[in-house]
């Protein structure tokens, strides 16, 4: 795999839209060509090279291309949108819509990511070493088909409404999770190692959530049983867990939430 390095020169306050920062677009291009790619600063079309020093070499194909971003790109949106293969490594924090509709490949973020990242993801592997913003791995506005595949791991905390309308794949949050984790979830798997704020699994009709601790369970969740060291979605968990079914606010509810008994 070959590597292109983008070093941040500046980040304009109005932000950038940079769906062109993606392995598929970079593949087979020279660093000069890459620096010449359009990138959008508000309503102005600019060049990627105006904001990033480009070095290295892109691969012959999407799968052969790794992009390393050095610096903080919190204000750059849409990096890796729709990627199917290849790799993106951000050595800082990432902006909105990172990896949205991603189907494959690998994304690593050393810092945090903003809201609306990895929406409607279908495949690939994501590792966020800092915190993730609201709507991580969720559906876009109005869509009832959210994340369908792939895995996202967050070492820190995650914001509210992660995995809305989830239909598959896995999200693992090693820290805490704000409210409405897995709202309207249908299928898929969420694991929260820390504490989940209230309204976890709200309006879920399917899928599975495991949490170490919850602020409160909604009335629509019915305790089913207590299980010692359960195996959930082929993963082993240690300790005692209380299993709930819900959210029975919806008559079709077939979701499951497991909460560790402290």
């Amino acid at each position, binding site marked *: 795999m070959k590597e292109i390095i983008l070093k941040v020169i500046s980040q*304009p*306050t*109005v*932000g950038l*839209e940079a769906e062109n920062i993606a392995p598929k677009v970079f593949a087979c291009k020279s660093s000069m060509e890459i620096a010449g790619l359009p990138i*959008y*600063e*508000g*309503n*102005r079309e600019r060049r990627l090279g105006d904001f990033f020093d480009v070095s290295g070499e892109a691969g012959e194909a999407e799968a052969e291309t790794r992009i390393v971003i050095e610096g903080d790109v919190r*204000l750059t949106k849409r990096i890796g949108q729709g990627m199917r293969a290849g790799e993106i490594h951000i050595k800082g924090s990432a902006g*909105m819509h990172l990896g949205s509709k991603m189907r494959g490949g690998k994304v690593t973020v050393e810092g945090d990511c903003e*809201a*609306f990242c990895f929406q409607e993801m279908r495949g690939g592997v994501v590792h966020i070493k800092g915190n993730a913003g*609201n*709507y991580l791995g969720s559906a*876009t*506005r*109005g869509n*009832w088909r959210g994340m369908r595949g792939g895995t996202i791991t967050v070492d820190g905390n995650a914001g509210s*409404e992660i995995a809305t309308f989830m239909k598959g794949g896995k999200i693992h949050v090693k820290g805490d999770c704000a*409210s*409405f984790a897995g*709202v*309207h979830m249908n299928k898929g798997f969420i694991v929260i190692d820390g504490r989940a704020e*209230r*309204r976890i699994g*709200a*309006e879920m009709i399917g899928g599975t959530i495991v949490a170490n601790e919850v602020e409160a369970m*909604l*009335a*629509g969740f*019915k305790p089913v049983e207590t299980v010692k060291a359960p195996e959930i979605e082929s993963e082993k968990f240690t300790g005692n867990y209380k299993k709930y079914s819900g*959210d*029975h*606010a*919806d*008559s079709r509810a077939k979701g499951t939430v497991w909460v560790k008994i402290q």
Partner: protein
Amino acid sequence: MEIHTDVICPFCGTLCDDIEVHVENGRVMEALNACKLGNAKFMSMNKKNRHIVPMVRGEDGFTETTIEDAVERVARMLVDAKKPLLYGWATTECEAQSVGIELAEEVGGVIDSCASVCHGPSVLAIQDVGFPSVTLGEVKNRADLDIYWGSNPMHAHPRHMSRYSRYPRGYFRERGQQDRTVIVIDVRRTDTAGIADKFLQVSPGDDYELVNAFRTLLNGGDIPDEVAGIAKKDIASALELMKTCQFGMLFFGVGLTMSPGKHRNIDNAISLVVDLNKYTKFNLIPMRGHYNVTGFSEVLTWQSGFPFGVDYTRGYPQYNPGETTSVELLSRGEVDAVFVVGSDPAANFPKKAVEHLAKIPSAVIEPHETPTTYLCDLNIPSAIAGIEVEGTAYRMDNVPIRMRKIMDAPAGLYSDREILEMILLKVREIKNGA
């Protein structure tokens, strides 16, 4: 004396269209049928010292300028900006809103309305789960149960209950009030709660839990003895009223959209209403605040596909509230100019958002002095829509009504639409010249 009948009140989303206004020598003498709010608006037409001339901020405060100069300044500000925000639009007519949308598209900006800090969450909820609704005449003719949740019409929509819900006689409700039951759900015992048959005092921020409890019970599940500060038996008995009525209505206000959970409160409430349709006829209507905030979302939707928070910076409409809405854009510092029409964000936005507004180039079209005219660099006063200018407005239930003109604006004042058209023309001139 001129007597104008069937006048439309340009105040709240109830959009009463039965006002009789008496005008003598350019003064409003009376506004019959209007509520306190409407009356105050009509009477404010007699205010002295209205600004006629645009004002521009200089080193020593504001100085007067010509409309031509003001138009050119706004046009330049918009053309120079990389991401201008065009905000407001709830208190002007659809014809002006339409020009505003064209202007936003032309300058590649973001256009957003007061909906984003009012019923925007309701729209997000509708987009997730739908919107079983009716026009207000259906309520008047059929409803035997009206629920006001997180809304206080006695204060915000004073004639709502007398025109449509609590009091009127309808085709199938000949006895008026006697045929109807009213439930109020709120965090305080509001004045509206005072005239309700049943009041549920929900603990602040727990509305979602309460809806969840209603739905769970409705679906045959069980709930704890108390949810959201309300005893199970009270929840159950309110639910029984909902299930057994012939035609139920849920009117919900910003008490739900502004509380923790925001759009999810509405999302779940809508689902409750959908569920209730298995038992009886049940619908809902949001209590929209400003008289034409609904009209703006209609016009923007048929023109762009999306109802508020539309970002045209890429030349096509993009919509993602939470990203493309005003409070984020301002508090994240993502916009570099603000143009306000028919709104008062300096009064209505949290301080952090206003801080950025105060820093960047800004302009406002507004008939009166407001915190926003105080903070903006340029003010263009305009004629008052719905009184001095005719045009379309949409009621809270999306019914379009043509507002009447009942008096002339003071000489020298233009309508919002005319000013916007001048700016649009100037923008095109500048762009073509550049």
